[in-house]
């Protein structure tokens, strides 16, 4: 759906299958991130409306909208808000997770840089709903300009009385501060993030409690939500929960931004109604298809932590009461179907891999990421992620032995389920799924003479320098 009044920068027009709600102003002609520009288009009107509601009504609307978190786990946002203990007497905090570091994900970046007031309005509404008077935006350090833009937007919101004391005469006080990370992926994990915000190493906390909503920042109830999730809150109030829930599909409501990278003609961001576009439509229509003469070898559907799907894989899923068999390109891009296919929608980062790529090389690149980013608290994760990388380093160098594949698989399976945080699964799932689906190619890479096939300067460097 394209809004007729809006025009976009040449070459950056949304695809006709897109439904631009959150990205309405991204790449828009004549748009800028200032308060003046935003106020001309009804900015902060939803906040004014919210301040006249009961906080509980807002939470109920978010529950009724069916909104599920866009940061990775897909947990219902309204339900999470409801986990703040009713008897709580401590201050409540809200944290916007703007760490955006799951490989393949690049959506929060554009909201922050191009439409910061959408996020701030969403945050103020959400803080009012959960009763938070102090909130932080935890933004990755590698967005220096983004941090500045947000600070400017916050100052503007103060000037207009949308932040600070007695917001719009409602009696509600709120301060939002920007807090910059320092280049560690684990700060995206919400309890690691909280430790980091407390000025410590970002070691994720042992569960339970399962949600920081019970015990979070400074041991007080804390709501952590992704940038995109918080933006949706504003649109839920604008449209009404019922109308919002008509977008997308049942249990998978609203819109979400998919980020496509890798081997397609037009990589980029595409905001779709959840479940209304299939993987095939996304790749072939919206992204212009694969490169000339190439075949789909694999696709990682929800950030590098999601299990890989093979291009020719078949899945049995339930459609209504019937069980049907579908291929990768038939998968509707929603939370539940991707889960039924054994993977996940995750953070919305779709990485497309064509038949010009060597699987061991792809997996090795992913393993290097997790080996570098493990926080080191749990032995299986700290040691295992490095072992997995060392084994795939060997495969890529052509020094692998056939039994390496089973060793690799067993290392992964000894991480999965045995760690403090979900990074354990995130690091093990790529290896587990690549072996399950591409075992033959992995084994072939251990045969003599296979190394000439894989030419990769990165690994040559890594092998030379890091041993």
């Amino acid at each position: 759906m394209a809004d007729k009044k809006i025009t976009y920068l040449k070459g950056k027009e949304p695809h006709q299958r897109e439904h631009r709600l959150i990205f309405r102003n991204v790449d828009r002609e004549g748009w800028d991130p200032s308060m003046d520009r935003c106020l001309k288009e009804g900015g902060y009107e939803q906040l004014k409306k919210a301040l006249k509601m009961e906080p509980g009504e807002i939470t109920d609307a978010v529950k009724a909208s069916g909104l599920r978190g866009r940061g990775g786990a897909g947990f219902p946002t309204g339900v999470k808000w409801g986990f703040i203990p009713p008897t709580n007497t401590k201050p409540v905090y809200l944290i916007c997770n703007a760490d955006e570091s799951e490989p393949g994900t690049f959506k929060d970046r554009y909201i922050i840089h191009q439409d910061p007031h959408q996020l701030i309005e969403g945050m103020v509404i959400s803080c009012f709903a959960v009763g938070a008077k102090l909130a932080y935006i935890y933004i990755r350090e590698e967005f220096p300009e983004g941090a500045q833009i947000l600070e400017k937007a916050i100052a503007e919101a103060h000037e207009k009385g949308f932040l600070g004391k007695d917001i719009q005469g409602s009696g509600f006080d709120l301060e939002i501060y920007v807090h910059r990370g320092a280049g560690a992926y684990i700060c995206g994990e919400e309890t690691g993030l909280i430790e980091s915000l407390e000025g410590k190493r970002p070691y994720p906390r042992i569960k339970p409690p399962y949600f920081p909503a019970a015990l979070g920042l400074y041991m007080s109830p804390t709501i952590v939500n992704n940038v995109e999730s918080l933006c949706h809150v504003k649109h839920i109030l604008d449209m009404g929960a019922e109308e919002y829930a008509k977008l997308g599909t049942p249990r998978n409501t609203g819109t979400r931004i998919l980020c496509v990278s890798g081997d397609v003609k037009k990589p980029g961001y595409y905001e779709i109604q959840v479940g209304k576009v299939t993987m095939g439509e996304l790749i072939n229509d919206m992204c212009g298809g694969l490169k000339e003469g190439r075949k789909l070898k694999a696709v990682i559907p929800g950030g590098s932590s999601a299990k890989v799907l093979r291009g020719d894989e078949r899945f049995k899923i339930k459609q209504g009461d019937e069980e049907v068999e579908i291929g990768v390109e038939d998968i509707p891009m929603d939370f539940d179907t991707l889960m039924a296919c054994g993977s996940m929608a995750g953070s919305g980062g779709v990485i497309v891999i064509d038949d010009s790529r060597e699987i061991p090389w792809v997996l090795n690149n992913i393993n290097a990421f997790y080996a570098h980013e493990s926080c080191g608290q749990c032995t299986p994760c700290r040691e295992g992620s490095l072992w997995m990388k060392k084994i795939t380093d060997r495969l890529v160098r052509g020094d692998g032995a056939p039994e390496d594949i089973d060793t690799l698989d067993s290392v992964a399976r000894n991480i999965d389920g045995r760690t403090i945080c979900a990074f354990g699964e995130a690091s093990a799932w790529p290896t587990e799924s690549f072996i399950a689906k591409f075992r033959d190619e992995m084994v072939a890479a251990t045969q003599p003479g296979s190394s000439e096939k894989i030419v990769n300067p990165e690994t040559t460097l890594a092998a030379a320098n890091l041993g």
Partner: protein
Amino acid sequence: MDVSSQLEKEIDERITHYPVSKRSAVLPVLHALQHEFGYISEEAVEWTAAKLDLEPIKVLEVVTFYPGFRQSAPGKYHIRVCRTLSCAMAGSAELMEELCKKADIDRSGISHHDPIAISKDGTFSIEFAECLASCGTGPVCLVNDDFHEAVAPDQAEKMLDMYRKKES
């Protein structure tokens, strides 16, 4: 290390963002110092600790954990090239190689704990970074605080020139 009164004022203002716990200001104080001095020296650790009423070890353990903090001086322009999958598929390893060649940087001495290599003349330094959240426009890199996207390996020289010009 000479912290100007202007910088100290900025830092003091940052600390007020954490009314519940001053310790929370460790990262922002370190960022301010690294921005000014290029890296976090032992003195900077002591200074931060004194400022926030912490044991120096509480600051040092933070500095050594986060890849974003450096313990030695980088080049004048510090380049971070994204290493992760989508950028690697788009040629980031080749970009790294070209940048090193054109800027006269030898990466053979780097290690996990010391991942930065510096050009002979000290103008540039370089390291790999993990996914910079712009995977659709790879290969991407940061030069100090400037973001560069779709930097094909044959554009390496052009990008370096932008910064060389600032020097002359």
